[in-house]
């Protein structure tokens, strides 16, 4: 082993760690300027929970602008908290917020209606640009509202969407949509507007509200030092009143800033590229590097999952977004364990693909608002529910993992000569083993769901669409196993069935939710239905490829690659088999 081969993985992993640490350390606000970051750590109540201003800013900017930063008039990228501060102070004499181009309008009819130029690449407009047409916009909105939700055309939907974004903005501007002012010990919160008007009515001074208002005023008057001092004082006041909430808000701000899931995605993409190059050349070191990078990414994802559990005080899966994150986590863990067992580099490849894809899905699911939203009472924390969602989501995960190994099996077998006897055997062992695991988890998870339902409303099983979805996965996995045991299918058949398992799981995960959209499906997440259709089409393509008779598979049509030396040490066997396959 050359020096390069030996030290390359250490170097690459070291660089990754240095990068991550540099991202984690937040640069201080520059001296003499507004400490916006300091302000963004202050806790407020929104959506039923205490969160930092930072999260509030990001969520709302995301809603209206589909981004977590904005570009100011100088073309400089600014954090969401800056936009929030400008919006808060808009009615106190700060003209900045109206000029920020943050309203995303991509529909050309709406743009034409507002008399705005199409702005390719940005698609974002300021309030000042919309204001001249406000009256006709109001008319269009009331007309669209008069139409029944299911009958609205695209223009009407987009007009209402814009109206909703404007009302979010106005709520922030009026300071009455966010509960910012805590009572003495944080058990009751009021909006700043309400607190001030109560103070005017009763004459009793609300010191907290005054302190907040003072902060906003110094911001308008452009007195950075005064602003920074007041923010510090206000923070100290809250720390005395409710230390836990302040601490949690601090942590959440760090979480937002670190963007752990984004960092994970980067690492997955990088590791994936290494795996692919490693396939062609320089196998050992690149595969090792990819493996360790994926381990680091998994570590970050694990930390992020725990952090979300701490922030929310709930089990890891509470909505579609968190299910995607959790499925990614489970798939990675499983695939990395398989890599340790089989040491073929392929398991790392599958891990990075699944990690990346689930991050992408989660990113698209996050657009709808706070991903740490509070749960309805029935879904409130409960032992059975927590174990149910965890277990059943891991069941989905394992089914996907089996399915992706099956795709790899089919593609390698049909299109390359690489699927030699050893790889053939180990891949089908993996598929079989993971299907067993999936059966166990999906069954237990589904039944635990029944037990939770029995505890909650006395009906163990109700055959509702979501339950049916989970049941389909259980039956499908059981079918694969029984078909294998009965000899109806062999390794190749099992791989094809496992790919169909992906389709079944996709249906349970996203499909059943779409049915409620009903007859007029321009639904709120029409995109999900389309995405699922595309996913099904790709999986169906793999199934069809998998059904090509084995004599036509490149791996089987050619000569058997040389058998590896049986005396080779453990682990090197698969690798040398791979090397043999490439020669």
């Amino acid at each position, binding site marked *: 082993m050359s020096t390069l081969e030996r030290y390359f993985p250490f170097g690459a992993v070291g660089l990754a760690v240095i990068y991550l640490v540099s991202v984690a350390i937040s640069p201080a606000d520059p001296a003499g300027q507004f400490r916006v970051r300091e302000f963004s750590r202050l806790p407020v109540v929104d959506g039923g929970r205490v969160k930092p201003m930072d999260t509030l800013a990001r969520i709302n900017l995301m809603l209206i602008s589909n981004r977590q930063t904005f570009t100011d008039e100088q073309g400089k990228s600014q954090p969401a908290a800056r936009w929030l501060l400008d919006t808060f102070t808009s009615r106190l004499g700060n003209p900045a917020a109206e000029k920020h181009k943050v309203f995303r309008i991509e529909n050309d009819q709406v743009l034409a209606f507002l008399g705005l130029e199409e702005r390719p690449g940005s698609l974002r407009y300021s309030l000042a640009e919309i204001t001249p047409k406000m009256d006709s916009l109001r008319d269009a909105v009331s007309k669209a509202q008069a139409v029944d939700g299911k009958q609205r055309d695209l223009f009407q939907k987009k007009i209402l969407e814009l109206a909703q974004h404007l009302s979010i903005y106005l709520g922030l501007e009026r300071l009455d949509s966010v509960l910012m002012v805590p009572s003495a010990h944080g058990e009751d919160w009021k909006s700043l507007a309400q607190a001030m008007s109560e103070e005017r009515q009763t004459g009793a001074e609300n010191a907290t509200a005054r302190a907040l208002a003072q902060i906003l005023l110094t911001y308008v008057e452009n007195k950075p030092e005064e602003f920074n001092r007041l923010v510090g004082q206000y923070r100290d006041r809250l720390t005395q009143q409710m230390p836990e909430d302040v601490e949690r808000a601090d942590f959440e701000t760090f979480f937002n800033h670190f963007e752990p899931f984004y960092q994970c995605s980067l690492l997955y993409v990088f590791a994936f590229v290494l795996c692919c190059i490693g396939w062609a050349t320089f196998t050992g070191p690149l595969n090792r590097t990819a493996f360790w990078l994926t381990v680091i990414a998994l570590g970050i994802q694990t930390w992020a999952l725990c952090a979300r559990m701490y922030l929310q005080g709930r089990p890891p899966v509470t909505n579609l977004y968190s299910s995607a994150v959790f499925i990614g986590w489970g798939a990675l863990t499983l695939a990395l364990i398989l890599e340790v067992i089989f040491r073929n580099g392929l398991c790392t490849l599958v891990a990075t693909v699944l990690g990346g894809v689930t991050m992408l899905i989660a990113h698209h699911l996050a657009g709808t608002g706070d991903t740490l939203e509070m749960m309805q009472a029935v879904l409130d924390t409960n032992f059975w529910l927590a174990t149910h969602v965890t277990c059943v989501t891991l069941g989905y995960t394992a089914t996907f993992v089996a399915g992706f190994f099956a795709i790899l099996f089919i593609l390698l077998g049909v299109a390359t000569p690489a699927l030699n006897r050893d790889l053939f055997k180990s891949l089908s062992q993996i598929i079989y083993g993971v299907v067993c695991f999936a059966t166990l988890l999906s069954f237990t998870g589904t039944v635990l769901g029944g037990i939770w339902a029995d505890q909650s409303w006395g009906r163990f*099983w109700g055959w509702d669409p979501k339950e*049916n*979805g989970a049941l389909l996965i259980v039956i499908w996995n059981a079918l694969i196993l*029984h078909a294998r045991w009965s000899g109806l299918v062999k390794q190749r058949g099992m791989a094809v069935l496992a790919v169909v398992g992906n389709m079944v799981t996709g249906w349970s995960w996203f499909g059943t939710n779409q049915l409620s*959209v009903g007859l007029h499906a321009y639904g709120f997440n029409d995109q999900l239905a389309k995405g699922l259709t595309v996913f099904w089409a790709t999986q169906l393509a793999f199934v069809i490829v998998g059904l090509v008779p084995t004599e036509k598979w490149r791996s089987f049509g050619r000569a*058997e690659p040389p058998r590896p030396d049986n005396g080779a040490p453990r682990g090197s066997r698969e690798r040398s088999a791979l090397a043999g396959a490439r020669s």
Partner: protein
Amino acid sequence: MVKAIETRPAPVAVEERFDEPLERPQKSALARALGPVASLRLTVLLFVLSLVLVFCSTLAQMNASNWTVVKDYYRSFYVWVPFQMFAQFSHIFFGTKHDAVWSGSFPFPGGWVIGGLLLVNLLAAHAIRFKLNWKRAGILMIHSGLVVMMLGELVAGLFAVEAKMSIPVGDSSNYVDVSHKNELAITTSLDDKKDQVVVIPDSILKKGGIIRNELLPVDVEVVEYADNSDIAVAKPGEENAADTRVADDGRAYKVVVKEEESGTDTNGRDNAPAVRVRLYKRASEEALGTHFLSLWHYADFSNRMIRFPAEHFDLDGKTYTIEFRRLREYKPYTIHLKEFHHDVFIGTDKPRNFSSQVQLVDPEHGADRETKIWMNHPLRHRGETLYQSGYFPDDRGTILQVVRNPAWLLPYLSCSLVSLGMIFHFGQHLLGFLQRKGIV
């Protein structure tokens, strides 16, 4: 010139077995007789059928309530599956026309048949291959757990009763409204303490025609029976229409017949059936009037938002009340609601918790105790379980779900058996595999 002869080696023996097949050739008479019934291939076929059934029943819930679908697809021997729902499916996922009509339907075995066959298949397989050793212990546990589960679902399907009890704050109740069953009740007061009630169950109402019975003070003609209805404020000009009634709030509301609630709708509303009856003097043609009665008018209906005054008719100097309501079942115990709490998440109207502080009084059992019923913390009494289920508009009362299911413990048993069985069985394989790999 001789071309090089291409030699093509025989394909690799790709489909090696790595797992012992379960089906071993057996020659006993029992095995020969049961062979086809016990076949694993039959199991796979039954799995395919159950997948289709479960999938179709999911789609069916786009157009019908969950309850209707469970009855039609699972608690039945066969079902006619309409093609129309595949048109809807295709619209949602493939973007085909939303008004496409695919008429017709195809028959499919129902839950009793597929479930029964699975059970027979499983028992037959074990009858043939029964062997008690460690290797098979896991499989045995899994399958006995599944048998327990199927029996549990059978018992629940046949005997479980779900009902609701609605109690205003400070009030008591000793009866429940059985879910999904309704009745027409005609009440007259005999004296200060006693009422006489005659009820007609909806199974008779659905048949239509004229209902005559010596217990009934009148003859009842069912003009119309609807599985579901909706209620809305009457539009101007409709205030005096036949289907409009004035509520306690002084406003007129109109009830209209509509298609069934959808089981896929996340709001999960119950159907509100409605019935239009014409009353006649007994054994005569003399009509006493027509009444359009919906569950929306019934005070204890769980979705009710508005209260209506009772509907009356007069006959021979007596006043009768006529009401369409849930099937009423009286209980030997009384629940008194002392307090009701409905907490929301701070700054939102998203419910965080509901709880009912109640007094349970059961003279026969000598019970008289105070207890709290809240989310995931039901009250169990006399084989029945009372769950916090809902609340009145304005939080003025609680709605409890009262369930009697003799099989409620079976799923717990089944879950433990199957899960432990799988852990044991797959764990054994995994361990063996890791040992062969030299990892453990």
